C-alpha cells in the first residue's frame, strides 16, 4: 500500500515538470488616409450689372487639419480681379470668401492660406460683384473669370 501511493505521487510531480505555454500575437491596425473633399460647389456665379453682390457656396470636408486659399484666374498684377470679354475689355470685380461657421475671411489671391482645424464639414460663402460701373456704353458682351479654391492638407 505504501509503495503504490509513492509511485502515484512521483508520477504527478513528473507531469508538472513538463507543462508549457506557447504564445503569439497578431498586430491589428487601420490606417485612415488624410482626405479632403469638396461638395455642393456652385456650378456658376452670375454677376449683376448693378454691382450688387452675387453669393455662392461650397463645402469642404476634411479628416485632418487643413488650410484653404482662394484665387481668381484673372488678376491685374496682384491689384484686383477682373472679368473680361472676347475683346479683352476688363471690368473690375470684388471677391470675398468667409467660413460660415465663424465668419473668418479666407485668404484671397496671396498670403498664407487660412488654417482650419478640420475634422468637420465646413461651409464657405463667396460674395462677388462688379466694381466697375456698368454704363449705357459698356459693350454688350459676355465677361468671364474663374474662381479658384485650393485646400492643403
Amino acid at each position, binding site marked *: 500500500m505504501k509503495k503504490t501511493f509513492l509511485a502515484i505521487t512521483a508520477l504527478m510531480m513528473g507531469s508538472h515538470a513538463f507543462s508549457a505555454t506557447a504564445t503569439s500575437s497578431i498586430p491589428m491596425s487601420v490606417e485612415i488616409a*488624410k482626405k*479632403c473633399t469638396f461638395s455642393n460647389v456652385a*456650378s*456658376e456665379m452670375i454677376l*449683376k450689372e448693378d454691382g450688387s453682390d452675387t453669393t*455662392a457656396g461650397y463645402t469642404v470636408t476634411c479628416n485632418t487639419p487643413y488650410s484653404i486659399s482662394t484665387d481668381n*484666374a484673372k488678376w491685374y498684377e496682384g491689384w484686383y480681379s477682373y472679368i473680361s470679354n472676347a475683346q479683352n475689355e476688363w471690368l473690375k470685380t470684388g471677391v470675398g470668401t468667409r467660413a460660415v461657421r465663424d465668419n473668418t475671411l479666407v485668404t484671397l489671391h496671396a498670403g498664407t492660406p487660412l488654417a482650419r482645424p478640420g475634422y468637420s464639414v465646413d461651409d464657405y460663402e463667396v460674395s462677388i460683384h462688379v466694381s466697375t460701373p456698368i454704363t449705357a456704353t459698356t*459693350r454688350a458682351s459676355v*465677361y468671364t473669370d474663374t474662381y479658384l479654391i485650393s485646400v492643403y492638407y
Partner: protein
Amino acid sequence: MKTLTKITLVAIAALSSALTQAATTSASIPVSLTITEKCTISDVSTNIAIPNDTTSGTGAFKVTCNTPYSIRTSTTNTSDAATFVKSITNSSHKLNTNITVDLNGTAVPVNVGAALSQPGLTVDTYNVNAALVAAVVSTTPAGSYNDTLNISVDY
C-alpha cells in the same frame, strides 16, 4: 562625421515623408456677367420750328448704344422721296421741305437709302435740319403746317 551623416539621412527621410503626405485638392467656379444689347434715344427735340424763308430750323437727339447699331429716319409726310409739311386744317396745302439728319457731318438717310451703321459704345448726338424748299410768299395759305421725323435704331 558618421553621426552627422546619420542625422542628415534621418532629416531627409523625415522631410521626404512629410512631402509625401502633403496634398492639395482644388475646385473652381465659373464667373460670368452678361450685358445685354441695349440702345436708347434721348434728349430728343420737342419741336423744330421751320423758318418761313429757306433757312433751317434745327433739332437734335442722342443715341446711346452698348453695341453696334444702324440708324435710319423717315418723315410722316413723304412722296417719291420728297418731304413736305402739311396744313393741319387743309391737307391739300403742302410746302416741300428739305430734311437732313447727320452725325458729325455723316448723313443719316431720310426716307430712302441704306441705314447708317455705327460702332456704338458712345453717346452719339445727331443734328436735324429742316427747311422749306421755297420761301413762303404772300399767297401761301396761312396756317399751321407740320410733319414728323421718325427715328429708328436697329441693333
